[in-house]
């Protein structure tokens, strides 16, 4: 989305973005020191012992992990910036979890598309290429603490290079597909891909 020729009368802005973050803020976003919560619908409650993560669909081999099995996988700390389509960005934050590259080992995906699905019914779609190559994680910690329920705990997807609705909270699994299928927000007006640097917020962007 290009800038505007229109000037708002007597507007100067307060520029609350710290200097060191200035070039890390995508267009139309503002710096948010907190961590707001945005969820469609009631907040699900999933006990870790009931949680599992699965990869299914068009795959050579389905995989599924319990909470304990998941925690035997290589665990990474992921420093990143997150960008919510509602305009706030949280910069310089840390999540902890397992890389999708690790989870996809031996799965043999037979399709190029994915749908993340959640406890509670939320879905979001992405090309498989956006979940591989060190770009996506299933995370269970934020700033060294267990991920809070309102932020998707016990586990959520983390795909920090895209708007944050592409990172499903309370994630239950990823389905590999041979075609693209819009998820919840993608059917309800948000962009099918959601690159914050191209400001792909809505269908028409």
């Amino acid at each position: 989305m290009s800038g505007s020729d229109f000037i708002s009368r007597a507007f100067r802005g307060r520029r609350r973005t710290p200097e060191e973050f200035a070039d890390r803020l995508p267009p139309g976003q503002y710096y948010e020191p907190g961590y707001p919560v945005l969820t469609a619908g009631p907040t699900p409650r999933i006990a870790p012992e009931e949680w599992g993560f699965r990869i299914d669909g068009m795959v050579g081999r389905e995989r599924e992990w319990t909470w304990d099995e998941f925690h035997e996988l290589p665990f990474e700390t992921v420093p990143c910036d997150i960008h919510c389509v509602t305009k706030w960005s949280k910069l310089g934050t840390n999540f902890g979890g397992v890389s999708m590259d690790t989870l996809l080992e031996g799965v043999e995906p037979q399709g190029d598309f994915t749908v993340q699905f959640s406890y509670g019914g939320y879905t979001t779609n992405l090309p498989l290429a956006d979940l591989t190559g060190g770009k996506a994680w299933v995370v269970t910690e934020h700033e060294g603490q267990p991920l809070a329920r309102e932020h998707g705990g016990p586990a959520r997807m983390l795909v920090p290079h895209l708007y944050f609705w592409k990172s499903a909270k309370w994630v239950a699994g990823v389905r590999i597909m041979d075609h693209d299928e819009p998820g919840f927000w993608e059917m309800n007006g948000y962009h099918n891909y959601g690159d914050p640097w191209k400001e792909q917020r809505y269908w028409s962007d």
Partner: protein
Amino acid sequence: MERLTPVLQRAPGRWQVANVTAIKRETPRVKSFRFELPMWMPHMPGQHYDVRLTAPDGYVAQRSYSVASSPIDKGQIELTIDRLEDGEVSPYFHDVVMEGDQVELRGPFTSYFVWRGEAPVLLIGGGSGVVPLMAILRHRRRVMPDLAMRLVYSVRSADDLIYADELGDEAVVTFTREPPHGWMGHTGRIDQALISEAGIDSGIVFICGSNPFVDAASDLALGAGFRANQIRTERFGPTG
């Protein structure tokens, strides 16, 4: 086919320059702004617009605001804006914008927290979370006043009651901190009794407010027998 006259494209999502035609002070912290839009299209009650402010040096700030008006108001929308002290966009609207000003905006957007005429409807709003619910309530009054709809509205004090002069029989208000002098109605946080009093136990529930408010209200709606897929929520994050 070529056209002899250019067509004005009315696509959602295109930035347009709207005229501010009326400003109403709702509370000490909240004002409603009525805009005339050159590329207006009817919204669904519950949808939002994005506004964009641009400084002379190109600096831009964007925020989303829910539409408060009914889509029956052709060519116009009303946005109700809560003034956040450390905000950047809402103080501009409150302290700078006057009738006759122009503001850049685009919309209407998203189709999850929207009312498509389903009934019965229970609306539960906390603070400025009442704004998209008001669009639903106003639309129902204009087009289908017989349809079962109640609003449960929680505010801190009399000074926080938005749309005070419009809340009729279909609204149940509770004051959590300071009720107005002589108030005989409800006080304290919303609870199961208040939800029961609203008298809507089937259909669809819209809940909007702060995150803790939405969580509490969702639990109450679930407790009242609504299923999760009958409950739509909108959480107002910090939006300065």
